């Protein structure tokens, strides 16, 4: 452990803003890259199923 207590951990020796901002941006970018394709897949499957049903009903 490099820190004695939790407030030291948050402060990061005065560099807290920089460190937490970096890790925060990383979390957002990683999350976007996983959630976006999953949502796109859901949307795509809905669209393709609808198209398939329309074609087979004609």
């Amino acid at each position, binding site marked *: *452990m*490099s820190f004695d207590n939790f407030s030291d951990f948050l402060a990061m020796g*005065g560099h807290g803003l920089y460190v937490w901002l*970096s890790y925060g941006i990383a979390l957002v*970018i990683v999350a976007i890259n996983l959630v976006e394709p999953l949502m796109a897949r859901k949307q*795509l499957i809905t669209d*393709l199923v609808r198209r398939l049903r329309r074609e087979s009903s004609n």
Partner: protein
Amino acid sequence: MAEKKSWLPRWFYQLASPRWCYEFMGRLLPWFGVGTLFLLVAGTLWSLVYAPADYQQGNSFRIIYIHVPAAILAQSCYMLMAIAGAIGLIWKMKVADMVAKSCAPIGATIAILALATGAIWGKPTWGAWWVWDARLTSMLVLLFLYLGVIALHSAMESDTTASQATSVLALVGLVNIPIIKYSVDWWNTLHQPATFTLTEKPAMPTEMWLPLLVMVIGFYCFFAVSLMLRVRNEILRRERRASWVRALLDKV
């Protein structure tokens, strides 16, 4: 008639089959998903809590655990995009085109991450968010190349022509990769030289570079997950008229 001898291994032809790729990636995804989760959570805890602070930079040094993996990944992703594009151009392999297309948005966001964390790290270390340094500028060019590929692809009506055009752009832009790598040697820069090299032991102590290695591998696993999710979507979209996709959709 004698059977034509092939000089390419069997897996190369299997890779050409969208259906085989779709199913194979579906089987790989859970493993890479678990790996990503484990490595990134462990790596983050390790780098934030257990790694020692740098004797000069203090705790701002911990940004390295995001910055270096992101920068490495942004460049590897570009190389994969260019190589997949070339394979698509030469062998007309549809899956390779889909891989190349799917690399672009991941690479662009990861390049943004590398640049943003670099700027955030630069402020307490160099006293400036941005300097027109060779390493920083060539990384910015990398981001613009990704954005160019995305824009060019979306400007084209047909998937085939779009893939051909973006592959050529990606291949031309490949010249930027050695420039990024050697920028710290060729020019006098503020940026420090490479942390990891394949041939030498890192200059950092073990308790500093080991978490970095975990983060780099974790970022690669994350990349694999995101890429496979995107490529599978592309396969479904482009192969929607194929009977196996119809059969798959009937089950939904």
